[in-house]
């Protein structure tokens, strides 16, 4: 049975509550923190000479698709009607959006320690950070970075990515000058406010935990990545003649990326799934757009 991922802004009050309750149950069982650890452990930067599957790499999109599917499967074991909602940050652009309401994500962090104090993921309401990188055990955010304000990516930013007709290009990392993947992931060589685009810029805009290695501690991570996943689907629909994933073959022994990236048919640790396995989700879920 194909299920539907909805825009978070269209969820009913009951749907919001059931999503939050399912997340809280995974947290209590310890499963949630396994997802946090997986994301930390698999983050390999592109200046490192080892395999990178999750970021700055062609498999950024299929790796996170699989990651979301695992999370959603865990949620649906708790409540079979729950799916991961998506956050369209080109539309819901301010800390006043209902996304940040007390019955969904809660609001921004307070001054000083950036502690989130409202909603289900506030420390005082029981959301304790166990897999963090600071001594605080509370979730942190700095929505919009008021000290040096920054805007969320726009429709034009998304269009800049989807205008690319090729999925990814050599050198297959954060310095790839063309290609849909790197433009959606959002690495640029720009300086100042323009250095972050699309996916990366959203992590920067939320700030706090979302900026660092332990970003999964903030449940908005899933809503953000569901929208990134939707944009990949949309690009595939828009570009039926483009190869849906590149590279098709692993780089050869003399290539600087040899054994550092995953080709279409190669497994993406920690799973045996390949990018090929993740190319279509029609039989599993759909997006209500």
């Amino acid at each position, binding site marked *: 049975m194909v299920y539907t991922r909805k825009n978070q802004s269209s969820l009913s009050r009951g749907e919001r509550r059931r999503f939050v309750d399912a997340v809280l149950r995974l947290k209590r069982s310890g499963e949630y923190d396994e997802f946090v650890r997986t994301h*930390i*452990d698999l*983050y*390999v*930067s*592109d*200046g*490192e*000479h*080892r395999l990178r599957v999750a*970021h*700055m790499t062609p498999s950024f999109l299929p790796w996170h698709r699989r990651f979301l599917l695992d999370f959603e499967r865990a949620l649906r074991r708790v409540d079979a009607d729950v799916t991961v909602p998506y956050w369209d940050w080109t539309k819901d652009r301010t800390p006043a959006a209902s996304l940040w309401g007390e019955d969904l994500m809660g609001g921004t962090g307070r001054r*000083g*320690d*950036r502690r989130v104090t409202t909603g289900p993921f506030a420390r005082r309401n029981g959301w304790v950070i166990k897999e*963090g*990188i*600071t*001594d*605080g055990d509370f979730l*942190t955010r700095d929505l919009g970075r008021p000290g040096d304000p920054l805007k969320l990516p726009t429709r034009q930013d998304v269009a800049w990515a989807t205008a690319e007709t090729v999925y990814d290009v050599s*050198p297959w*990392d*954060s*310095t790839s000058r063309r290609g849909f993947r790197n433009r959606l992931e*959002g690495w640029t*060589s720009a300086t100042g406010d323009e*250095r*972050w685009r699309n996916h*990366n810029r959203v*992590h*920067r805009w939320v*700030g706090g935990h979302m*900026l*660092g*290695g332990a*970003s999964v501690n903030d449940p908005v991570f899933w809503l953000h990545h569901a929208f990134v996943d939707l944009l990949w689907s949309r690009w595939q629909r828009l570009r039926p003649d483009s190869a849906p994933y590149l590279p098709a073959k692993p780089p050869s022994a003399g290539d600087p990326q040899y054994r550092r990236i995953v080709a279409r048919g190669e497994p993406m640790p920690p799973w045996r799934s390949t990018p090929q396995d993740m190319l279509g989700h029609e039989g599993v879920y759909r997006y209500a757009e």
Partner: protein
Amino acid sequence: MSSVRTVHRLRRRHLIAAAATAALGAVGAFRGLRGADEEEQPEAPGGPSFDETYRGRRIQGEPVIRGGEHGQGSWRVTVDGQPLGLMRRADGGYLSMVDHYQSYASPLAAARGAVDELGTHQALNGRLH
């Protein structure tokens, strides 16, 4: 990096030898282009070691000779004595465990950036990666 070191060594030898006027002239032109940094010792990738107070936090960093699990150019960086994990970027920069979404030009810049993000009340817990 090695070619830069070679230039440094050659230049020093030239100066010590007080070589021909033509050679000194060439060195002078070269210095003019490169600026004052030229006088300093050749450095490890990422710049010199540092130990400073930034926004009330003590930040220290030094290159690690043995690459360790994160490969060449590794650094040991601490904020108030707690390790800050750094990774190399393909563009030559660094990212830190606190900020995974931008390149910092040097370990010092990454450490300062981490302090900026930690705010005034949070300390690192020592987790590297």
